[in-house]
């Protein structure tokens, strides 16, 4: 199959649905939070009771605009909501309020980094809509939980600019980062607040027309998205290479069998009969509001990455790792604010010590590690040579558990580094005196013994001596 694979290229477009981080739902005052008991966050409006009407959540619009600005979209000053009709038990009104012909955000793009270099994925649109409830099938009966019904969503639709599973993964990660940076969404796939449908087709390399696409649903992790695309691309190429044709279908990803399979036609054959929602006036977004949101926009991941490379002399890799989560990058910068001179040390510390503790505890960054200023103070001691790097690691581990300050912890644990040249010289003399035989060997040319003497001196000083000063003094004394 290798030759066939070489002759085709994949054409991939993604539709991402993500919850907006509002306190209340899109059209009623119910809590939008995840995790309440079944049907606790519901009211007549999000249950679709007779006669109820939607009232648009202003905050949701602002967050959607933020996302649009972050993705370089043009924001529509006039957009309307539409009704998308279909019957499903989790859809209380029998229609979803969405946007069809006039989305809130148009165009735009997301820049991604891939192993083949930088790529730009253009966007078709970002529009607002409400989520549906959730069907639960258990013990032979079906139940519906409407807590999610009416939770605000944006749907982010890309152009078919993606060419591989890897690019799709990079796009999704960048999109999620942006959403989290601008505070528009938590972007958690596991909680269902970041969902992705994939459109895949393949065509002979160099062709300009698109092949027939397959839509893949039920993808609830980045890994599944990548696997499903890889599977589907291979399947389509195999089919075409064997002279077959690809019917336009909707497929479901089966994570257990790691394959996609077509849905029954009844499950998706819909004419949604869109028409303008008469219960909501057109959404008018004044230029002043757009500008106010633009001014208040936080720095975006791509800009921050570039700044870290430019201003802190970090590598692309280091900058990418540090900026992947906004809190991590914020933490790093707050450490520097404590007056650290060596940015590399700080960066390494965050990438190794801080992230390790976060991973090990599974707790949010703010709870898992000391405040950045304290960590900064700790590293400042290393920089000023009053603390060894190893001692700093010991202190940091203790601080994570106790919540104590750097100064107090280092004091309590007696970790302060001795740089007193007199004390170190005395210790060196003692070691030279007691190790006469080894000293003679060293002086006869066995250089390797130097480390042995350093170790002896360090031991004598309880491990707290400044290794640099030990080196200097020992060298001088042994030479003499």
């Amino acid at each position: 199959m290798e030759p066939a694979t070489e002759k085709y290229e994949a054409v991939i477009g993604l539709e991402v649905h993500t919850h907006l981080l509002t306190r209340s739902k899109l059209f009623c005052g119910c809590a939008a939070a995840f995790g309440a008991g079944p049907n606790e966050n519901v009211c007549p409006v999000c249950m679709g009771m007779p006669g109820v009407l939607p009232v648009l959540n202003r905050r949701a619009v602002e967050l959607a605009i933020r996302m649009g600005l972050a993705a370089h979209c043009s924001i529509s000053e006039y957009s309307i909501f539409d009704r998308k009709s279909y019957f499903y038990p989790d859809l209380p009104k029998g229609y979803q309020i969405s946007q069809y012909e006039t989305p809130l955000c148009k165009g735009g793009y997301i820049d991604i980094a891939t192993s083949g270099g930088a790529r730009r994925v253009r966007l078709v649109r970002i529009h607002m809509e409400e989520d549906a409830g959730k069907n639960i099938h258990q013990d032979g009966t079906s139940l519906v939980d409407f807590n999610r019904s009416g939770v605000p969503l944006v749907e982010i639709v890309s152009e078919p600019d993606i060419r591989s599973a890897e690019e799709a993964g990079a796009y999704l990660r960048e999109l999620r980062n942006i959403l989290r940076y601008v505070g528009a969404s938590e972007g958690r796939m596991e909680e269902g607040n970041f969902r992705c449908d994939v459109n895949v087709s393949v065509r002979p390399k160099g062709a300009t027309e698109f092949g027939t696409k397959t839509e893949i649903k039920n993808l609830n992790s980045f890994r599944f998205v990548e696997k499903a695309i890889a599977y589907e691309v291979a399947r389509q190429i195999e089919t075409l290479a064997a002279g077959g044709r690809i019917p336009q279908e909707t497929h479901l990803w089966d994570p257990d069998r790691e394959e996609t399979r077509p849905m029954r036609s009844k499950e998706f054959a819909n004419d949604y009969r869109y028409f303008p929602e008469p219960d909501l006036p057109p959404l008018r977004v004044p230029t002043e509001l757009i500008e106010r949101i633009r001014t208040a926009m936080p720095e975006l991941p791509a800009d921050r990455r570039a700044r870290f490379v430019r201003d802190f002399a970090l590598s692309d890799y280091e900058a990418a790792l540090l900026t992947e989560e906004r809190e991590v990058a914020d933490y790093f910068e707050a450490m520097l604010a404590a007056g650290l001179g060596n940015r590399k040390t700080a960066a390494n510390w965050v990438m190794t010590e801080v992230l390790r503790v976060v991973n090990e505890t599974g707790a949010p960054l703010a709870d898992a590690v000391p405040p950045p200023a304290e960590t900064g103070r700790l590293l400042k001691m290393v920089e000023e040579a009053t603390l060894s790097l190893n001692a700093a690691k010991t202190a940091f581990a203790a601080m994570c558990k106790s919540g104590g300050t750097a100064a107090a912890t280092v004091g309590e644990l007696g970790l302060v580094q001795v740089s007193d040249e007199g004390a170190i010289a005395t210790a060196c003399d003692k070691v030279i005196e007691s190790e006469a035989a080894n000293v003679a060997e060293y002086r006869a040319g066995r250089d390797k013994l130097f480390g042995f003497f350093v170790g002896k001196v360090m031991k004598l000083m309880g491990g707290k001596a400044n290794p640099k000063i030990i080196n200097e003094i020992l060298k001088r004394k042994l030479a003499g």
Partner: protein
Amino acid sequence: MAVELCRLTIAEARALLARREISAVELTRACLDRIAELERRLNAFITVCAREAIAQAEVADKRLEQGGAPALCGIPLAIKDIYATRGVRTTCASKILEKFVPPHDATSIAKLRAVGAVFVGKANMDEFAMGSSTENSAFGATRNPYDLQRVAGGSSGGSAAAVAADECLAALGTDTGGSIREPASFCGVVGIKPTYSRVSRYGVIAYASSLDQVGPFAKSVRDAAIVLRELAGIDPRDSTCSARPVPDYERALTGDVKGMRVGVPREYFVEGMEAEVEGAVRAALRHYETMGARTVEISLPHTDYAIAAYYLIATAEASANLARYDGIRYGLRVPADNNIELYNRTRDTGFGAEVKRRIMLGTFALSAGYYDAYYLKAQKVRTLIRRDFERAFETCDIIATPTAPTTAFKIGEKTADPLQMYLSDIFTISVNLAGLPGLSMPCGYDSHGMPIGLQIVGAPFGEEAILRAADAYERSGAIARRPPAI
């Protein structure tokens, strides 16, 4: 005295209540007695709320005792069964909601509760407000108090009949294409459909959202003004509701129409209109001239397209609005093996023929490939109709027309021919498409003794002008009101 009390107008009752010459409980009992006496023949109510009404009246009496109570405190009203009433069955005259008890109040109901009004019952109507005769009710047709063999009009026929027959002092209806004005005309009472957005639609079971509007039926123009004032105004639950301040409509009733320009649309005096209807309306126009108003001929050139546009827009919106009656969360459920069958059986059993007809019409109009030709074209026609009125109001202050081309017809006369039925609304539908305020008031009786309605239409938010014009006519004694002999 009991029966006499229910004949009072709100204006009369409010004075007697305020002076404590009568109590709200007595007044409510009088209405409930009247209902008990007539309902078997009239069928104006789907649900009578006797116990609740007395309890409300007792509370109202306590407020009245303290003095300074609002105008509607202790006033017995009938509520069209399209308003969600918390804790009280709300059917919309449909089998699909036969046992539905809403957890919420419509905003209009909440406002009326707050001022101490008394709700004697939920009035009959055409199922989901789809109809012009109240024959499409799953609970049987309402009969016209002037002639029990005739319809009360629709869709708010129960509300109109209840007011005409003194089963209440006033009533709430809704008007999507004439559903307040046509039954008001057929039952010889006053009914007003305010400007679209003047009154909140929250909790009013939607038929066609861009056309539905809430309004009162009353025995006098003044009473209609009193009720409308309580209903109108901004509602945070309805984004389409206007924030315009609400005038004191009662103060607009000066009785003075001198210099008022009354537009008479040439297109509204057409073939098919009963001669007695035309005669009564023309007489009313002449009467306005004797009161100092001036009639001017106007043209509304796109009138012919109104019914077609209406039946596309209204049914399209209805097809989505009625999708929620699916047997999943509330209302009727006919069990089946799978979802699709459950929907099919529930909706097939729960909806009546006219409702199904309109859902299918609307679904078709919105379907892929037909949207532009039907729904979009209808919206363009709607814009043209609105412009017709804008242009007309450059040369007149109000527009006067017949409310309906005929008086109340016989029960069963038009049920076999939906198109004939649809023509009952030929003079009222344009007003909904243009979103304008319109009212109907009695302007005479035909040779069978059936009431004839005069429709007065205003410019957007021109409620004061049409109420003033109607009140002046009513007070001038142009016609002698004849209460039904029932």
